[in-house]
């Protein structure tokens, strides 16, 4: 860690442009041997792009990467690995039906007679696999199928595979996102041992606790740039969160890159002034009351009350449990424990149908995979949820479908050639409006909006937030999830802050102030 030793990996001035998006701008990174270095940043800050440049998936437009002082330019992951940069990805990409040993040596089985066409030397493979794992202090039967072992062990096997080659740099892209507490500790134990051996480890995570538990140094990225490099011990949590999302007052910095700054500023002031005008104490009786709902490895027990006509903001970093809470409330995932009452009656939400029947709607954060059915038309996408509730036999007449669709197209200002246009050919903002229309058509009592404004342009963003406020005034409850803290602060009547898979703060509108929220997100007592 001494500054005297030169960095093993030095990245400087990386630019990467995708059509219409500037992903990286003058991005940089230094990795020293024998340190755990955490890369932090909001969604879209450019972390993954930077890693993909390092591992040869993307070629940078300009900039340089030096490994051990020599310039490198890997063109594929294999090349990067041969150079000594090994990566373990977020999803464990191993073969669950092969043995542990086979997984570690996949694509490079040891051969007999030291010839590449020699028969596979199974015994040598098992022995070497066991040795590799022993280095990570894991003692398991390597001839058993990988699927036989829990996820944490699988993660270790992935690391063992990455270590097999003479790795100098180990990149871990969100390795803990599907691990529970104890499993994370095991992983960290392994990382500490590797660090002691002199390995340079780049760790990407969204969890602040884990960052502080393991890191020596932190690089913060924002809007495709390196915001700064800090020693972990010298950076407070509050300062870190501040650097990740930018100062709260500074809207332009928080909103996504490549956006007309002037437009954002006016939009922000507009909404702010109108927001101030309609803040009569909303919120009547409780619409939904959740008590201690939890899911192992995903969400710690959480209590949540949602009043009628209330806009409840759910803030926190990615992975803090926001989406996970939403999915439990919608029955998309089953809760292991806890209870949910709707309108004072205890209900069982085993699947989305149950939740929809109770008047809950859910706009997923993953519009493409969990929301829009791209090849189907605007009309078909809008009527889908309502028709699903009506069932197969009570088909809505075509006239009524067209009426419903064109009403929402007009009301939400959806820009489409016609209501028969495939949703896939619409822009992101308009797709989002179509999904909004799909759920509004079911006339829900509670609408869960998970990142409804992600990846859409400023104008559509503002329009969507306007509808949301209007709906609230009409008595609909809204659970609003967004990574953009200023947005949540602007529109919420009440706000629950989540951190590390549990709720850690509940603020009413009067108490909402950026500093306390930031402190809650960062996990520092006020």
């Amino acid at each position, binding site marked *: 860690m001494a500054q005297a030793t030169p960095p093993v990996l030095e990245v400087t001035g990386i630019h990467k442009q995708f059509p219409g998006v500037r992903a990286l701008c003058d991005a940089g990174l230094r990795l020293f041997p024998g340190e755990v270095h955490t890369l932090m940043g909001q969604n879209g800050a450019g972390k993954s792009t930077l890693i993909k440049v390092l591992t040869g998936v993307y070629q940078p437009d300009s900039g340089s990467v030096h490994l051990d002082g020599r310039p490198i330019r890997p063109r594929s992951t294999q090349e990067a690995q041969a150079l000594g940069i090994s990566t373990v990805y977020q999803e464990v990409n191993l073969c669950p039906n092969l043995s542990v040993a086979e997984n570690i040596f996949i694509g490079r089985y040891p051969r007999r007679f030291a010839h590449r066409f020699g028969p596979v030397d199974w015994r040598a493979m098992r022995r070497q696999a066991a040795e590799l794992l022993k280095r990570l202090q894991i003692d398991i039967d390597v001839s058993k199928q990988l699927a036989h072992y829990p996820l944490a062990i699988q993660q270790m096997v992935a690391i063992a595979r990455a270590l097999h080659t003479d790795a100098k740099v180990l990149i871990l892209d969100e390795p803990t996102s599907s691990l529970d507490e104890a499993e994370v500790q095991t992983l960290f134990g392994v990382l500490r041992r590797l660090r002691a051996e002199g390995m340079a480890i780049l760790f990407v995570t969204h969890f602040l606790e884990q960052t502080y538990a393991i890191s020596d140094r932190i690089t913060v990225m924002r809007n495709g740039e390196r915001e700064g490099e800090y020693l972990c011990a010298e950076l407070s949590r509050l300062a870190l969160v501040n650097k990740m999302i930018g100062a709260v007052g500074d809207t332009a910095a928080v909103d996504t890159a490549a956006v007309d700054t002037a437009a954002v500023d006016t939009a922000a002031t507009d909404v702010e002034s109108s927001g101030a005008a309609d803040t009569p104490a909303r919120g009547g009786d409780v619409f939904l009351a959740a008590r201690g709902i939890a899911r192992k490895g995903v969400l710690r027990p959480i209590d949540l009350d949602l009043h009628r006509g209330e806009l409840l903001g759910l803030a926190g970093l990615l992975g803090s449990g926001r989406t996970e809470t939403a999915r439990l409330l919608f029955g998309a995932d089953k809760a292991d424990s806890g209870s949910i009452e709707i309108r004072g009656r205890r209900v069982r939400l085993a699947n*989305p*149908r149950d939740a929809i029947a109770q008047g809950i709607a859910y706009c*997923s954060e993953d519009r493409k995979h969990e929301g*829009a059915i791209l090849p189907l038309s605007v009309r078909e996408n809008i009527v889908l949820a309502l028709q699903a509730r009506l069932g197969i036999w009570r088909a*809505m007449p075509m006239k009524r479908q067209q009426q419903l669709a064109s009403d929402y197209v007009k009301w939400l200002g959806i820009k489409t050639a016609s209501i028969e246009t495939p949703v896939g050919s619409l822009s992101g903002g308009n797709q989002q409006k179509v999904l909004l229309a799909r759920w509004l058509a079911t006339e829900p009592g509670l609408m869960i909006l998970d990142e409804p404004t992600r990846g859409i342009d400023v104008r559509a963003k503002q329009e969507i937030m306007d509808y949301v406020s209007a709906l609230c005034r009409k008595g609909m409850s809204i659970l609003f999830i967004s990574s953009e803290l200023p947005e949540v602060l602007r529109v919420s009547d009440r706000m629950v802050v989540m951190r590390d898979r549990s709720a850690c703060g509940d603020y009413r509108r009067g108490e909402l102030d950026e500093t306390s929220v930031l402190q809650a997100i960062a996990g520092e007592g006020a």
Partner: protein
Amino acid sequence: MTTRADPALGKPSGTPAQALGAVLLQHPLLRPAAALTLLLVLDAMLLPGFFRLEIKDGHLYGALVDILNRAAPLMLAALGMTLVIATRGIDISVGAVVALSGAVAATLIGGTMVIHEGVPAYVANTPMGVALAAAIGVALLCGLWNGVLVAAIRLQPIVATLILMVAGRGLAQLITDGQIVTVYYQPYFFLGSGYLLGLPFSLYVVAALFTLTLLLVKKTALGLFIQAVGINPVAARLAGLRTATLIVLVYVFCSACAGMAGLLITSNIKSADANNAGLLLELDAILAVTLGGTSLAGGRFSLAGSMIGALIIQTLTYTIYSLGVPPEVNMVVKAIVVFVVCISQSSEFRQLLKKRTA
């Protein structure tokens, strides 16, 4: 064919006539219909009297009627297969279900000769209604089995239906005791070889089932739901669809169609051959669906396209036999035609072609 159609796509022209032309060129049925027409024109040139129809004993005879009649079982199988494929599934047990339902019906009916007042007459062992219901019932059970394996146990469709593909034919052989069961019961023959108002009865069966399915898909929400589940099952579930139930239903329907096809086949040949009835029918059905323009990736589907696809296959078979091509060559010729039609539907290939010609 392909290169001419493409420039018109997405550019509605000025005059109504041109606009109509553009719509027709974009129509998903264009390619399969053109292929069938081409084949028929070829037949008209190669086989004298191909289009000639004549009335004998009040029945309509001719090559076209023959093709339609022989295509009936395949059309039924393709009907069910279309919906399965639209949900991004596949059912390779169709042939086995054909054998099974045929075996059940034939064994139950059987038929013995009795002399009644000096006149020999054939009597069914079991009332025909019961036998038919039992055969279709067995087919429905097969579909339920497939559907549960796919939707609840989450086996890959091809693996799930492979089980029945093997087991179904085995069961059929158990039922028939490994023998070819011959049916001696006149009314049963009507299904597969009877005539009604001058046309083969099997055509009415196909027309009825096709119309029923079309109505079901268009007039209920079934069509929308099947497409949604086929394209994006996750989004469909989150929109509140009973995705599992839907998938089970689709497999049940497919097996029911196969069961019906089994009845037509056994009735037509007056016997149930557990070994050969419906052999490889599933592959022809999948082929018919593909030729009809439904993608194996699920989603948008065309029932009419699948019917045309089935007719293409049957016309091709008829042509090959009529031309006196040795049956050994039949498969090769079929493969070539299939290859050409399928490749003309591949967008990658069309782009490649465009690049070459440009």
